[in-house]
């Protein structure tokens, strides 16, 4: 009985601050916003973060790139130390072993630096050597053909890196742009999410799938991939095997779409903003979608592709993060109510409450919005010239450089953690149901992005005045 009482006490008296240090989302906010604030303070005092935010520059011969690394060795070491300390603190707070994380992150950083440098080769785009694709393919080959050491796993925190990168992305995202484009993104995303969920769910049920599995698959395909699947699996009390089935399908289709969406968009010559909106509508996970959107930003200016490079990432973020991700709590609440009141419960009682919306809210979005507000306030009153000549190179560009590093860590981690042999077997019926949703999602996303809202997304990618 005393044990029982202690257990209850620990569960009911958890500090309200616990989540601030126990969830990856919040650590992404602390790290991302911390960097934005430091960059802002340095900028205000006439300095900049750009020394440490080193990135490989364009090169055409091996000698040039070697000379670059040689000349900037101290900066790269400082950058490595910065990331190691920041992510190390977060990882330690989450309860992971620092002794494993340090060597794993060192490997991740070195390989990421090489991939980043390869992407800066002046012939890279000719051979489709976009850093996100190279990182993904290299990671996939390594994880599926080699036996990687177990300790390396500790450094492969896909979500931690992508969430930190998204918070930093907010620094290059004018807040007025979010206010201007947010409603359209939410509207387009709502149409696609509802239709995609409906298709997967009803096809799944028609094929005889358990309703909880159909719902888990549906939200995985319609809202936010693996995160959506795991959130709804818990909300509806899915069977143990349901989430792994949905995750397998999300991963397989998400990886296919990382390659297909940018390449098809390029073949169609879509403007960067339009392609970004399509990717944001039709990719299944933030990390996978950003890999595709970042790849497409590298195509800007090639073969008649109009729009700024940033526009594909911005449109993607508006569509996926603002349009889809933030609604996961609402989906979980609604499906939880339906599961509790309409579906058989097998002796397990669940109770849904509105707090579900906040508990499952992807908190890193808050960091993204605050970063946007901070930099927008810093830019207030500046002329366009001053913005471009001072604020961009001294404040925004270094944060974009750091963001790109976080993204590459993420893209490489996706490949290195995708071990096809370890994924759960999905089975034919879940595959058919999910694939039906994929087909509808891609077609509907294309129509909305390239026809219905084409002017809007094209305008998003236009350079400033």
């Amino acid at each position: 009985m005393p044990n029982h009482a202690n257990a209850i006490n620990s569960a009911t008296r958890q500090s309200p601050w616990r989540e601030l240090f126990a969830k990856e989302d919040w650590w992404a906010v602390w790290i991302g916003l911390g960097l934005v604030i430091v960059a802002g303070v340095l900028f205000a005092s006439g300095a900049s973060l750009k020394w440490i935010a080193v990135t490989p520059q364009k090169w055409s011969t091996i000698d040039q790139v070697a000379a670059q690394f040689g000349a900037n060795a101290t900066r790269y070491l400082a950058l490595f130390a910065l990331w190691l300390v920041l992510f190390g603190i977060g990882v330690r707070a989450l309860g992971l072993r620092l002794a494993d994380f340090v060597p794993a992150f060192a490997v991740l950083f070195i390989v990421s630096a090489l991939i980043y440098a390869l992407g800066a080769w002046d012939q890279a785009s000719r051979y489709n050597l976009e850093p996100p694709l190279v990182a993904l393919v290299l990671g996939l080959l390594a994880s599926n053909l080699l036996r990687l050491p177990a300790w390396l796993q500790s450094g492969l925190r896909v979500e931690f890196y992508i969430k930190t990168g998204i918070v930093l992305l907010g620094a290059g995202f004018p807040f007025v742009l979010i206010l201007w484009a947010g409603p359209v993104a939410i509207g387009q995303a709502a149409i696609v999410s509802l239709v995609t969920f409906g298709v997967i769910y009803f096809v799944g049920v028609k094929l005889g799938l358990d309703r909880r599995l159909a719902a888990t698959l549906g939200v995985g395909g319609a809202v936010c991939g693996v995160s959506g699947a795991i959130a709804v699996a818990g909300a509806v009390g899915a069977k143990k095997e349901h989430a792994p089935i949905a995750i397998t399908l999300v991963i397989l289709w998400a990886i296919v779409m990382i390659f297909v969406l940018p390449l098809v968009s390029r073949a169609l010559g879509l403007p960067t903003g339009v392609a970004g909106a399509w990717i944001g509508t039709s990719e299944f996970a933030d990390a996978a979608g950003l890999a595709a959107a970042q790849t497409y930003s590298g195509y800007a200016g090639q073969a008649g592709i109009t729009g700024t490079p940033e526009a594909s990432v911005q449109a993607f973020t508006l569509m996926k993060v603002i349009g889809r991700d933030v609604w996961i709590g609402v989906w979980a609440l609604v499906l939880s109510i339906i599961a509790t009141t309409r579906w058989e419960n097998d002796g397990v009682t669940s109770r849904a409450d509105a707090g579900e919306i906040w508990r499952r809210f992807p908190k890193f979005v808050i960091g993204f919005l605050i970063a946007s507000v901070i930099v927008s306030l810093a830019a207030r009153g500046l002329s366009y010239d001053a913005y471009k000549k001072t604020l961009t190179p001294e404040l925004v560009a270094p944060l974009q450089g750091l963001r790109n590093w976080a993204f590459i860590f993420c893209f490489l981690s996706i490949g290195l953690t995708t071990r096809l042999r370890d994924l759960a077997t999905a089975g034919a019926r879940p595959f058919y149901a999910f694939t039906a949703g994929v087909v509808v999602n891609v077609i509907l996303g294309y129509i909305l992005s390239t026809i219905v809202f084409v002017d809007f997304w094209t305008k998003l990618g236009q350079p400033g005045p």
Partner: protein
Amino acid sequence: MNLWHSPAATARTQRAPRSCATCRHFCADPKAIEAAIPGLITLGSGYASVRSDDGLCERHQRYLSAASSCSQYEAR
């Protein structure tokens, strides 16, 4: 004001202490969840906010909210 657990949820947990959160058949440890669900770490995470405090019930072989309950509850 408690922003992390709504007053309704807190009251609910206090009224129903025999919830999964304190049951010995229930595991919500992120590391264990990541190990038990193949592919979760590839495009997701056991430490994500969206996962809330959900966990695996070995008794029912289900992935449940920590606020769920059943008649086979056993305190830790």
